[in-house]
């Protein structure tokens, strides 16, 4: 590994959530500050120690420079800050850019923080519009194509090419609801059945309402610092950033090179290569689950099963406890919560908690290596992070 590799150079020393789910009357800044305070308390680090802040845009907030507005609200004056925007993939890029900033000497203690109130801070129509108006106004939007539709067309083509069935897609939602039933505070905590999914109203074929993720309020925050500083602070179970990778293949859905093989292949290949591990080494995963079919395709592209076999893999129980790769053990965007760009930060929170052994009845035994994959904009953006305990360095 070269000196410039980020492998093991930076540790996550604090994690925190705000209230999550339906949280009326709270601004994204208020939720972000709650999550940040929790993450700093978890790390045992004072806010005055924070010299870097990375965030993402919040639809329900007027502040385009969310990280700057957050710092004022939270009462800190960082010397490194940015508000990142690569849609759903932003979460994993916060970890890679935060780690790179620390390794490169731009900051010592970086707070990653994001929050949004998509459920109560926006009307449903405004929430939908906020997602559709980011697409091309000349070549896509005149035809009434919501972002759900771009993901739907990829899943539909996957069904055509590989025989993936509506029942297999529904099983993804079923597994997530079962996981969420054991997660305190999960928004959709009642287990559902395949029939529930297939009988829910059609949104955009092949996706029924229960194939789609939730709309929620909430935020999450993380504290990152160098491996050396984590040691000096006496952090009991630092979790290390072992590998990072990104890939951007297109903007318009009609220029996606393949509808069924995504940039996640390359982003995860790079993350595994930096970490020095393979898919089969992972003990637990957080996989961006904006829709059920997204998970099926990602299980393939992240290397957990062969291309085209994602549907049977899920139906065979391989993404849950006792299977090859227990994934989204908190319930994911489908059943825990999805507050927009912070959504994938909940996956990070869960995977890091799993690696620390803090998940109680959800705990995956001896989890030491974890992967989080976040993506967005109809698979236009993909970013993967591999995390590990001290023993995996």
């Amino acid at each position, binding site marked *: 590994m070269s000196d410039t590799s980020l492998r093991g150079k930076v540790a996550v020393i604090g994690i925190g959530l705000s209230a999550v789910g339906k949280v009326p009357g709270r601004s994204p800044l208020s939720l972000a500050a709650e999550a940040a305070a929790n993450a700093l308390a978890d790390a045992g680090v004072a806010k005055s120690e924070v010299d870097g802040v990375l965030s993402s845009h919040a639809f329900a907030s007027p502040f385009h420079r969310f990280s700057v507005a957050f710092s004022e609200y939270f009462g800190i004056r960082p010397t490194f800050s940015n508000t990142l925007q690569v849609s759903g993939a932003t979460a994993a890029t916060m970890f890679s850019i935060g780690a790179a900033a620390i390794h490169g000497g731009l900051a010592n203690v970086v707070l990653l923080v994001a929050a949004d109130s998509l459920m109560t801070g926006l009307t449903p*129509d405004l929430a*939908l*519009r906020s*997602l*559709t*108006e980011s697409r*091309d*106004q*000349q*070549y*896509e*939007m*005149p*035809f*009434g*194509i*919501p972002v*759900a*539709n771009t993901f*739907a*067309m*990829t899943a*539909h*083509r996957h069904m*055509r090419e590989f025989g993936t069935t509506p029942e297999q897609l529904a099983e993804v939602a079923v597994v997530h609801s079962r996981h969420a039933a054991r997660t305190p505070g999960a928004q959709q905590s009642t287990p559902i059945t395949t029939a529930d999914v297939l009988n829910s*109203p*059609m*949104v*955009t*074929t*092949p*996706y029924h309402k229960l194939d789609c993720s939730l709309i929620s309020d909430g935020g999450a925050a993380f504290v990152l610092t160098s491996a050396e500083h984590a040691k000096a602070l006496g952090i009991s179970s630092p979790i290390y950033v072992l590998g990072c990778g990104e890939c951007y293949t297109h903007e*318009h*859905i*009609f*220029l996606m090179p393949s*509808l069924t093989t995504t940039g996640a292949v390359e982003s995860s290949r790079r993350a595994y290569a930096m970490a020095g591990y393979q898919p089969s080494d992972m003990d637990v995963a957080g996989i961006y689950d904006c829709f059920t079919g997204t998970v099926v395709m990602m299980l393939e592209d992240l290397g957990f099963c062969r291309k085209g076999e994602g549907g049977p893999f899920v139906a065979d129980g391989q993404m849950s406890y006792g299977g090859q790769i227990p994934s989204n053990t908190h319930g994911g965007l489908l059943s825990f919560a999805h507050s927009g760009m912070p959504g994938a930060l909940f996956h990070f929170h869960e995977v890091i908690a799993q690696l620390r052994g803090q998940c109680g009845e959800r705990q995956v035994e001896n989890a030491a290596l974890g992967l989080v994959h976040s993506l967005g904009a109809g698979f236009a953006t993909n970013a993967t992070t591999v995390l590990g305990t001290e023993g995996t360095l």
Partner: protein
Amino acid sequence: MASEDSVRKPLPAPDADTVTFWHGLRHGKLLLQHCRRCRNVQYYQQATCRECGSDDLEHRPATGRGKVHSFSVVYRAPGPAFKEDVPYAVLLVELAEGPRMISTLTGSDPEDVTFDMEVELAFDQVSDDITLPRFRKA
């Protein structure tokens, strides 16, 4: 109550890159850009070839024939402007010339769309300046 702005469908606002494209549609042609240097055919329009960077691009009318590479029938509209249109079939059409484009089906039941279905261009004039390229079953 939805505001007037939110019930209006988004209409393309042509710019320097795309004015020729929208002018073509108004006159019954779906123009594709053919690169004279590397022979790449591209949709959408811009000043240079996305493959080789050449600005030696020629606009040529497409045959208008294609097939459905993928599709999704929308039952929940993306905002008030499309509420009266549901269900409608969003198509990812692969044109005979190679490029793919997003459009919608016109002239037949959206629930009858199939993969690889042959489609042909249909012009839908939606304002004085804008004609949208839609597709009907061939």
